């Protein structure tokens, strides 16, 4: 079972790959939009990347609730 930190680190790589955000900036308390400057289309790519990487399904209606890195990590922990 992956730890919270493992998931955060893997997610950080994904955010870096898609949006160029430095991996160290991708911390649990950070908002994708407000803090990391991830736009809505990049956010879609990140969430689809999460589906591939973690084997979860993130419905479009659920994705609106994943505002922070912590929200996404918690969702992945709960559903993978």
């Amino acid at each position, binding site marked *: 079972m992956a730890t919270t930190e493992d998931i955060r680190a893997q997610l950080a790589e994904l955010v870096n*790959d*898609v*949006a*160029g955000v430095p991996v160290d900036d991708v911390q649990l308390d950070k908002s994708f939009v407000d803090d990391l400057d991830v736009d*809505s*289309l990049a956010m*879609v*790519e990140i969430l*689809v990347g999460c*589906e591939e990487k973690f084997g979860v399904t993130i419905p479009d209606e659920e994705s609106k609730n994943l505002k922070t890195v912590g929200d996404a990590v918690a969702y992945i922990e709960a559903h993978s």
Partner: protein
Amino acid sequence: MTEIVITGLGATTPLGGDVASTWAGMLAGRSGVSAITEGWAEELPVKIAAYVKVDPSEVIERVKARRLDRSTQLALIAAQEAWTDAGLDWDAEEGTQVDPQRLIVSVASGIGGLHSLLNNWDAHRDKGYRRVSPFTIPMLMANAPAANIGIQVHAKAGVHTPVSACASSNEAISLALDQLRLGRADIAVVGGTEATIHPLPIAAFGQMQAVSRRNDEPERASRPWDVDRDGFVMGEGSAVMVIETLEHAKARGAKVYGTLAGSGITADSHDIVQPDPTGEGQFGAMRKAIADAGLSASDIRHVNAHGTSTPQGDLTEAGSIRTGLGSAVDGCVVTSTKSMTGHLLGGAGALETIAAVLALHDRMVPPTINLENPEPDLGIDIAALTARPLPAGDLAAINNSFGFGGANVAVAVTNANQSR
């Protein structure tokens, strides 16, 4: 009429990653054609193409590049060079150097973001809709290159993308010329781009018998007007110019390569792919461009021909040049730089207009390579195999571009007035 001058040049082509290396390659008669290295070519009858010499991944930052189709990446590289060459700062804040309300972009693509369209279809078919990139549409749309350039330079007086297949970028240049003359803007970024080295268009052009199958001799495959020509070679790349009113150029102390003197547009309305064999539309475009520029046929000392290396197209164009120039054809040096670059489709007109501008500027016409055995009775003086000097004094040139659908666009340029 308001004089429109050319103040910046940019290109990334099969001969080089910028204008200087591309132009040097042209004058030296180098071929940019090579074997297609990707495995898919094994299945196809056509296994050659002209890739850009410098891959855009070496120039554009990775995260930015993944949101841009290859055609847009190439256009941004060419536009940045042209903008910088014009003495402007690519990263300047809006309104700090050029009035955004007086700046337009007119940059064409013949086909659009083909790789993005097809790669995302592959992803959809193979892995389902969730794998389709949310950037697909802004990547595949034909106006993406122009729009991304417009965003970068803050162009607010209009961002245009005329589409007329292989005449597209000459049409883009013509459109911007008109806009500047009409007083709707002072300065424009103009040109074209194409990136379609992909199995589908290679197969499709192959099925039309339009592309060369000289697979064992890639560098000798593009051979306009040669008796052994067997079709064009697909190239990729982009070429972009900055043009502006003479008044605007003078006010900011810009250097001037030459004058964008006129353009002529006609439509064959004859056949969807074959040129009208009478050449009426082609020589009509040339004559219109000459008249629009206030020139006479005898002023035209150089034609950069469409000259794609197809059996019928080259013959039709030779006749059109003869008719278009009349007796003045004897004093005119013709070339086809596609013999070296391959055919950049929607990027061709802009690249070849730049070649014409530089030919006048440096008084040297680049060669038509591989023209070892010219068709008999062409009646045009072609710079076969080696570059050919142009005389001193005022010079004018025409660049021809013809597109599927019957579009004919001729652009006339003159060298910079020495007294300026």
